[in-house]
């Protein structure tokens, strides 16, 4: 009996050793990402990269989306040697750069004569003092989603790419009926007032928030008219925007471009079933139609990685045309948009086929949601706290904005 056990253990050990030997033949690149299991573009990128780089395996380290900043920072500060980290927020990039977690990329860019022109300048948001620390592979900007079936049923014309905010509010009220909400605002500050940065002048870190009043007023009018669910309700029920829109009783919803792939996925797996489209977000009278704001998603090389050259090969591929095509194939908007890529985006399976949706893919201008600065995260905390007070009507819009101005002035010193 004992002999048999010993033999079995020996065989097991040999097998383990053998499997290690096999694994060592190819190279493995570990990439820390969020929601790797459920994000279609990550699967598409992995497949395309592995196909064009035989012998290399991409291994995702999966972190829940809402915990990403904390978890990734903890990993980095603990000396984790994963090769590549995805960058979710520009503020994270800045914090990590300051802490020395990021491999500077200028020397790689020079030695491989990497062409940055496809990014049309947005990559500069990932540079600190002229040194590039990450490459963007995805650039989400906000669009207006709408449920075509609801508009058809109500006999109302679809939203257009050049609506003003007033026209939008009117449309939302028109579409509101028993059980149907004309529009939907998620609880974030960005969903309600970030439109202010679409003019290319204002930013959320400049310390003057008086312009936000327009958008808070617009929201409160819609809430009072019953054209959208109340903030209070959404917050206590913890309702996610995707569940809300997929429910099929919301006519319009401004949301980031990332929701396209979620929505296509939800329709494919039968979670919901209706026709939809996108148009550019509405604009103020004095701002060009087709302006929006957005965020960048990128990838950086961990300064502690032992496969830096391979990691560079990966992130430069990811951000370049080939990677962008893979990203676009799942309905996600890459940061690098050439004509080939734009065509690929529109032909993604499940993407609406109408011309307006296609035209909405290329915005005129994309402001940065929250620019990186030394104080971005502190400002963001203060603004969000005051935002909750305005949204719950604990403060009037004027009081709230005054408090924002006052608190940010204090942070800026």
């Amino acid at each position: 009996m004992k002999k048999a056990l010993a033999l079995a253990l020996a065989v097991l050990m040999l097998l383990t050793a053998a499997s290690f030997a096999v694994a060592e033949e190819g190279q493995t690149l570990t990439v820390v990402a969020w929601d790797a299991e459920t994000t279609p573009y990550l699967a598409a990128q992995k497949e395309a990269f592995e196909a064009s780089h035989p012998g290399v395996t991409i291994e995702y380290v999966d972190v829940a989306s809402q915990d990403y900043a904390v978890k990734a920072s903890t990993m980095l500060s603990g000396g984790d040697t994963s090769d590549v980290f995805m960058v979710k927020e520009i503020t994270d990039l800045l914090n990590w750069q300051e802490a020395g977690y990021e491999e500077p990329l200028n020397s790689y860019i020079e030695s491989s004569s990497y062409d940055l022109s496809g990014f049309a300048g947005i990559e500069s948001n990932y540079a600190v003092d002229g040194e590039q620390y990450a490459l963007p592979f995805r650039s989400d900007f906000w669009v207006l989603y709408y449920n075509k079936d609801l508009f058809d049923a109500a006999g109302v014309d679809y939203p257009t790419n050049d609506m003003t905010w007033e026209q939008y509010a009117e449309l939302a009220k028109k579409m509101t009926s028993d059980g149907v909400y004309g529009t939907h605002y998620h609880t974030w500050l960005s969903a309600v007032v970030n439109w202010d940065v679409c003019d290319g002048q204002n930013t959320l870190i400049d310390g003057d928030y008086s312009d936000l009043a327009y958008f808070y007023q617009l929201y409160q009018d819609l809430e009072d008219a019953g054209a959208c669910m109340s903030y209070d309700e959404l917050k206590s029920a913890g309702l996610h925007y995707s569940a809300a829109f997929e429910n099929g009783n919301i006519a319009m919803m401004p949301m980031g471009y990332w929701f396209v792939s979620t929505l296509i996925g939800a329709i494919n797996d039968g979670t919901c079933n209706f026709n939809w489209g996108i148009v550019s977000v509405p604009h103020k009278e004095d701002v060009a139609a087709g302006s929006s704001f957005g965020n960048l998603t990128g990838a950086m090389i961990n300064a502690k990685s032992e496969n830096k050259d391979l990691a560079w090969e990966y992130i430069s591929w990811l951000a370049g045309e080939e990677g962008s095509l893979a990203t676009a194939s799942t309905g996600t908007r890459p940061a690098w948009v050439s004509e080939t890529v734009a065509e690929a985006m529109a032909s993604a399976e499940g993407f609406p086929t109408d011309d307006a949706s296609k035209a909405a893919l290329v915005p005129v201008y994309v402001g940065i949601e929250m620019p990186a600065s030394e104080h971005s995260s502190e400002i963001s905390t203060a603004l969000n706290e005051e935002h909750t007070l305005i949204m719950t009507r604990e403060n009037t819009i004027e009081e709230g904005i005054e408090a924002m101005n006052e608190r940010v002035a204090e942070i800026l010193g």
Partner: protein
Amino acid sequence: MTEQSRIQYKRNKTRYERKKELIAYSFLAPNFIGFAVFTLLPVLFSIFLSFVKWKGGAFNTMQWVGLGNYAEIFKTAKVAEKGLGYLFTKVDLGIALKNTVFYTLVTVPLTLVCAMALAIALNKAVKGAVGFRTVFFFPYVASMVAICVCWRFMMMKDGPINQMIMAMGINYNKSWTADSVMAIWSIILVSVWRNMGYYMVIYLAALQGVPTDLYEAATMDGANKWQQFTHVTLPQLRPTTFFASTMMIISCFKIYDVVAIMTEGGPGRSTKMLVTYIYDEAFSNFNYGIASAIAMVLLVIVLIFTLAQFSMEGKYANN
């Protein structure tokens, strides 16, 4: 047993005891080592961190700022200029401190009163007492997240609790967690509801230890039920109350989970607590130095309470 054998026995016992002691220490050692590595060192490191500016990462990026972090969290320059009122209305630390102290001052007595009342009610041979004890203890073992999410639903606009309030003729229809005044009460309510079962069990155990002859004597002296309660039960429960309040004050100052799930510190800063503030600074803003300085403020407060309670122990902990 002769005198000699008694001495021999004693000596043997001593040697045996010494051996036993060694064994005991060897069992304790892992715990002590664990304490040193996982508790003592981090605490010392945290004290050190409160004097440096550090965003995490390589140790050589630390910058010694002395008391700079403390000046920063107390906003000393501004407070000196504008007075203490400014600290408690505008400064994050002052607001967090005010909220935490208010939460503690309400939660601790309320929980103790509820727990004691439950214990006294269920100490009698009421029908189904065991069942009730289990029911009241249940929240303590249930998942905190699940509890908080359920309560958030119950206290939402048009939720069951507001319906009851409206039925009583009070016109209030807003989510408790979205109301600057009620948000902290929602947290107090959940904390009391959750913890009273645990302290009820402790009080039940203490009540079993109250000698019945004290009640007999009191009855013979003509004491009514209320007098029996104030003159027999309450004094007999004093050591337990002392223990329970000590434990609770300390845990109340460290409140985090309920706030994080129910209100995220909001609306505004109305439920910002010391620990949620530490969390924000450390893991949203990555100011480890600032976060450690706030942690030191918390440490000092808890230490003061602990020392005060230790010094009163002789007076209150024994009969």
